[in-house]
């Protein structure tokens, strides 16, 4: 079982969280000309590589906040967790 450190609540079990996918995907800006390819990349296309992966989780059975988690997709090691609005660079 994963143990995820919620930046708001502290270390909690995976059961309290729900997964939200790749956190590096950016929605195309509103009010601009956006190509089909841009929408495609936002809605469907994913790198989904082996190794470090920055992803969204929601602390559904806790504070209900969305958070960012940097996790290794092969070993499940969690390197760090961030608030959703924190810069991940």
């Amino acid at each position, binding site marked *: 079982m994963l143990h995820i450190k919620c930046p708001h609540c502290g270390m909690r079990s*995976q059961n309290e969280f729900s997964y939200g996918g*790749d956190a590096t995907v950016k929605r195309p800006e509103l009010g601009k000309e956006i190509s089909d390819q841009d929408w495609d990349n936002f809605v469907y296309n994913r*790198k989904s590589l082996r190794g470090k992966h920055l992803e969204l989780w929601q602390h559904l059975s806790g504070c209900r906040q969305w958070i960012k988690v940097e996790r290794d997709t092969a070993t*499940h090691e969690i390197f760090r967790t961030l608030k959703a609005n924190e810069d991940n660079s």
Partner: protein
Amino acid sequence: MQKYSIFNLIKNAFFNHQKWDLAWKDPTPKKEYDVVIIGGGGHGLATAYYLAKEHNITNVAIIEKGWIGGGNVGRNTTIIRSNYMHDDNALFSEFGMDLWRKMSQDLNYNVMFSPRGIINLAHSDAQMNVYARRGNSMRLNGIDAELLDREQVREIIPMADFSENVRFPIFGGLMQPSAGTARHDAVAWGYARQADSMGVDIIQNCEVIGFDISGGKVEGVRTSRGDIKVKKIGLCVAGSTNILADKLNMTLPIETHLLQACVSEPVKPVLDKVVTFGAGHFYISQSDKGEMVMGGDLDGYNSYAQRGNLPTLQHVLTEGIAMMPFLSKLKMLRTWGGIMDMSMDGSPIIDKTHIEGLYLNCGWCYGGFKATPASGWTFAHTIAQDRVHELNAGYNLNRFNTGHLLDEKGLGTKTWIS
């Protein structure tokens, strides 16, 4: 090639079975091939077989990082079915059912195809309506489907929970009598043996390091056992699709996720159908050895771990016990996990790509095993003729761009959500 028959079996008994030919050779890669298939799983081996058999293309190599049949074809729950509503899925799968029925004869290898039937349980009136609609769609496409009421289901699987006061009472079910199971490893080995006998090189322990692409055309593939010149490459690597796509600078509508399965200790014959729970994701059948073979949801987050986490397993088995309470008495024998190429609409991709000579076969989600023969057959056609067959026309890569999704389950873009 030595034919497998009762006579050869008796003959070889005199030599204590020490003189059988090897089922396939262990060749050194040549410098050049007409076609290279990457991935020695069920789909890759089937593709090579149909390239040789249907299209007379035999200068083919299958390159496999590990050993053939060591991936998802060796660790699935062996279910074969074509109970789909959408035409593209239904016609493709039903074409595959025909290939399954002939497979043991065709390959001269007993794949133990057992058309025992599958029942999808319904737990509400609304679900019965949905199943009636799906069953009718199946029949219009020439697939057998029977809508069963509660009593008919009880007659077939009396061990399921038919009590009135449960959270998800059984209202009935949809049965496809011609669905079933097969011996998964035999499928890989049967295809490998026949492909090898027709001249295909099966090259194991050979990892793809990179590709030679020049002017938008495939020129070759670089492997851990040397560079190979080739004009056509077929990618059949399931859970490793994203890794190879990255080497090709492609980003695909695929995420890699982990799916678990498990078997109980073997027990006497109790269940002669494949049964799926209708109020969650759980399916069960009994193997010839007597083990209850069970599976269900993905772990739910991107994973290459090839081993599962317990919360999902617990969730899946809770559903199983709700459906068939006797399961709680059984001991678990084995659990395992494999990595799936989850496409964004739940349907696969068999298509050409923007790179000339590069062909893509991926996105099999939960249903790769049953698709093995039809996938190999249509992929071989796509590679040999450089155009898709009408059976896999709906499985094009462009559908995510044009909006013609094949969303059989109505789950939208996040097929990993449970």
